[in-house]
C-alpha cells in the first residue's frame, strides 16, 4: 500500500493528467451518446418500424469486444486512427445501447391515462414529449445513463491500447512490466471513478424522482456546461501539430526504445508527442502508414514476415535490405540498425534444463508429449512463429499451446503453468526468474535487428529525425538492451529516466 502511495506521489502530475483524460473520454462519449441516444429512443418509441432495427443494431454493436472494435476503426478515415478519436467513437457506440433501451423502456412504461390527458388538453406532439413523456421517462433514462457511464469508465481503460491516454496507460504499462503496483495505480483510481460517477448519478436520479419542476431545466444546463468544459479540456490536451510522434509496441523494451527515440529527437530541438504502448506489430504498422505516428522501432525479421509476408533471409544484412526495400515502396524509410538483435528465445525453467540436460531446441523432443507450451498471440499465428518452429524441429506437443499475453508469459513459465515459452532474447525476466534460453541449433529464427522505421514524409520535413537516429545507430548492444529492460522490469525504474541515463552515457 505504501508502495502504491509512493507511486502516486512521484507520479502526481501524470496521474492528474491521466485522470483528466479518463474523465474527458467518459464524459464526452457518454454525453454524445445521450445527445444521440435519447432522441433515437424517442424516435424508436414513436416509430417502431424504425425503432426495432435501431435497437437491433445497438444490440449487435454491444456484443463486439472493445479491442476488436478499436481494430476495425483504426484504418478508417475521420473516425479511425490511433488516438482519442477512435476511442471516443467506440465508447460512444458502447454507451448508446443502454441509453436508447432505457429511453424506449421509460416511454413504454408511461401511464396511458396521463398521456391521454395530455392529448385531450390539446398538447401538440412536441409539448406532449417535452412536458409529459420525457419528464416522466427521465428516471428510467437516467438509469440508462448511469449504466452507460459506469461501462464507459471501465471500457475507457482499454483506450490506452490505441494511444488515447487515460488510466489504462498505467494498467497496460504495469502489465508489460509485470508490475502489480503500476497496474493498481491505474486500476484503483478507475474503480473509484466508476463508483463516484455511479453514486453521483444515483443521487441525481433520486432527486429527479421528487424533483422541483425547475431542476429539470437546471440539470440540462449543467449537462451542457459539463460537455462544453470537457470539450475545452479535450482540445487543450490534443497535440501540437508540428511535433514528431513517436510510437511503440506494448512491451517494456519497446517503451524504453520509444523513450530513447523521443529523447534523441528532443535533443535536436524538436517537440515530440509520445504514443507508446500502442499494441502489437499490426497496430503500430497501421498507425505509421496512416500518419498517426511518425517513427517507431521495428525488428527486421518481424518486418519482413509479419508486415510483408515474405521469407526472411538468414543473413542479417540481407534481411535488413529486404525490409528496407519493402518499406520504401510504402513511403517508409528504414534507418540504420540500432545494434542489437532481439530474436525469439525458446525458454524453459533453469531447473528443468539442468535436470533433463536441455541445451538446444532439438532436445525438447524428448519432453513434448507431456509439456504444455505457452505463446503470445502473435507468435501462435505468425508463419515465423509456432507453425514453422514445430515443423523445423519436429516438435509435437502433447497439449495444445496456451495463448497468453506477452506480459504474463514469463511469470506463467516460472510458476509452472506452462513448461516452455517463446520470449524475447533481450528480456530482463530471463535472469530475474531463473530461466534458460535454448540454442536455435537449426537457425530457425531469422535475425531480428532493431531498426527505426520512419515515415519518409516526416523525415523530409524534419531532417533532425535522421540526425537523431544516426547518433543511436549501432550504439545499443544486446547487453545494453537487457540492462535497460532489467532497470525497468526488475528495478522498477521509470523508462524515461532509464533512456535519459543511456543517452547521457552516449555523449
Amino acid at each position, binding site marked *: 500500500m505504501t508502495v502504491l502511495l509512493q507511486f502516486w506521489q512521484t507520479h502526481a502530475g501524470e496521474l492528474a493528467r491521466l485522470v483528466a483524460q479518463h474523465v474527458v473520454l467518459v464524459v464526452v462519449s457518454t454525453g454524445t451518446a445521450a445527445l444521440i441516444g435519447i432522441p433515437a429512443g424517442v424516435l424508436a418509441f414513436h416509430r417502431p418500424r424504425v425503432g426495432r432495427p435501431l435497437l437491433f443494431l445497438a444490440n449487435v454493436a454491444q456484443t463486439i469486444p472493445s479491442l476488436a472494435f478499436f481494430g476495425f476503426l483504426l484504418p478508417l478515415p475521420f473516425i479511425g486512427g490511433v488516438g482519442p478519436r477512435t476511442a471516443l467513437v467506440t465508447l460512444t457506440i458502447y454507451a448508446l445501447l443502454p441509453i436508447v433501451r432505457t429511453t424506449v423502456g421509460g416511454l413504454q412504461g408511461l401511464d396511458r391515462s396521463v398521456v391521454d390527458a395530455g392529448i385531450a388538453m390539446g398538447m*401538440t406532439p412536441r409539448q406532449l414529449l417535452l412536458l409529459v413523456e420525457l419528464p416522466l421517462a427521465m428516471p428510467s433514462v437516467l438509469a440508462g445513463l448511469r449504466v452507460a457511464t459506469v461501462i464507459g469508465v471501465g471500457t475507457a481503460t482499454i483506450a490506452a491500447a490505441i494511444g488515447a491516454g487515460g488510466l489504462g496507460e498505467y494498467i497496460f504499462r504495469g502489465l508489460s512490466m509485470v508490475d502489480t503496483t503500476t497496474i493498481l495505480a491505474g486500476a484503483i483510481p478507475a474503480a473509484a471513478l466508476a463508483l463516484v460517477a455511479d453514486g453521483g448519478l444515483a443521487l441525481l436520479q433520486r432527486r429527479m424522482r421528487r424533483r422541483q419542476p425547475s431542476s429539470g431545466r437546471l440539470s440540462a444546463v449543467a449537462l451542457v456546461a459539463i460537455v462544453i468544459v470537457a470539450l475545452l479540456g479535450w482540445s487543450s490536451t490534443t497535440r501540437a501539430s508540428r511535433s514528431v510522434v513517436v510510437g511503440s509496441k506494448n512491451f517494456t523494451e519497446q517503451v524504453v526504445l520509444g523513450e530513447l527515440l523521443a529523447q534523441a529527437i528532443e535533443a535536436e530541438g524538436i517537440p515530440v508527442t509520445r504514443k507508446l504502448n500502442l499494441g502489437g506489430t499490426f497496430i503500430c504498422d497501421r498507425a505509421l502508414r496512416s500518419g498517426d505516428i511518425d517513427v517507431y522501432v521495428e525488428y527486421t525479421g518481424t518486418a519482413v514476415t509479419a508486415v510483408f509476408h515474405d521469407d526472411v533471409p538468414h543473413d542479417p544484412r540481407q534481411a535488413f535490405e529486404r525490409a528496407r526495400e519493402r518499406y520504401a515502396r510504402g513511403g517508409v524509410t528504414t534507418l540504420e540498425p540500432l545494434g542489437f538483435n532481439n530474436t525469439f528465445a525458446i525458454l524453459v525453467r533453469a531447473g528443468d534444463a539442468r535436470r533433463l540436460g536441455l541445451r538446444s531446441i532439438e532436445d525438447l523432443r524428448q519432453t513434448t508429449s507431456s509439456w504444455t507450451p505457452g505463446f503470445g498471440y502473435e507468435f501462435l499465428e505468425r508463419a515465423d512463429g509456432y507453425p514453422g518452429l514445430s515443423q523445423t524441429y519436429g516438435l509435437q506437443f502433447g497439449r495444445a499451446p496456451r495463448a497468453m499475453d506477452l506480459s504474463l508469459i514469463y511469470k506463467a513459465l516460472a510458476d509452472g503453468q506452462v513448461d516452455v515459452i517463446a520470449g524475447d532474447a533481450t528480456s530482463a525476466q530471463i535472469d530475474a526468474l531463473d530461466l534458460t534460453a535454448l540454442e536455435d541449433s537449426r537457425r530457425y529464427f531469422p535475425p531480428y535487428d532493431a531498426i527505426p522505421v520512419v515515415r519518409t514524409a516526416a523525415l523530409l520535413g524534419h531532417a533532425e529525425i535522421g540526425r537523431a537516429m544516426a547518433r543511436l545507430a549501432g550504439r545499443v548492444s544486446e547487453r545494453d538492451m537487457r540492462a535497460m529492460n532489467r532497470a525497468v522490469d526488475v528495478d522498477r525504474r521509470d523508462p524515461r529516466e532509464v533512456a535519459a541515463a543511456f543517452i547521457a552515457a552516449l555523449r
Partner: protein
Amino acid sequence: MTSPVVQFEEVGFHYSNDGAAAVGGLTLSVDRGEVVVLVGRSGAGKSTILKLVNRMVLPRSGVVRVEGRDTREWQPIALRRRIGYVLQDVGLFPHMTVEENVGIVPRLERWPGDRIRARARDLLELVGLPAGTFAARWPSELSGGQRQRVGVARALAIDPPILLMDEPFGALDPVTRVELQREFARIQQQLATTVILVTHDMAEAFALARRIGVVDAGSLVVCDTPRAVAHSHDPRVKLLLDTLVMPPGVGATS
C-alpha cells in the same frame, strides 16, 4: 333557435376493423349550456362517444359537429383547447404539483405566470380544495376524491365552452359525491358551460341532467328529460332504473 353546440348524425365507430361497433347509428344534439348525462352499463360505448367529440377518435361513418363544424375539419389542437375533459381515471401529471396540474392548459395557452397562479388558486377554492393547503402538494399525496376534484379544476382552467366528463365523481364517498355534484351544478349554471357527462350511476344522472341519454350497445335507447326517462317503458331503461334504491316518497311513481 341557436344551432346545437355538439351534434351527432348517424355516427358509427368501431376500434378494430373486424371488431364489433363501439358506437352505431348515434344521433344526438346538445344545446349551449345544456347538461346531458349519458348512462349505461360498462362497455356500452359511453366513453367512446366523448372521445368522438374532442377528436381523440374520428367517426367511421356519419358526422360529428362541434359548434357547427365537422370534427374532421377542425384542427385537433384548436378543437381540444375549447373542450375541457375530465378523464375516468383522472390522469393527473404525477411530476407536477396540484397547482401546476390545474395551470397546465393556461400554460399551453401562454398565459403570463402570475395570471396562471391566480387562476389555479381560484379554481382550487372552487372545487373545495383550499389553495394554501393543496397547491404545493403532489398528486401522490391526495386521496382519490381529492384527485378527482383537481381533475375537474384542471378541465375548467380556461373556461372551455364545452366540458366532457367521464365518471368524474366515481371515486368519491356518497356524502362528498353529493356535495361535489351540488357544487358542480352551481358552477355549471354560473358559467353556462355545455356539458356531456358519462356515468353508470342513475342517481347521479337524475341529480345533474337536464336530459338523460340511456346508452346501450353503442346507441341511444332514449334521450329525454329525467321525468320522461323515469316513465319510460323500455326494458333496457327499466333495468337501469331498478338499480336506484329510492328512499320512501321520492320514487318515480308520481
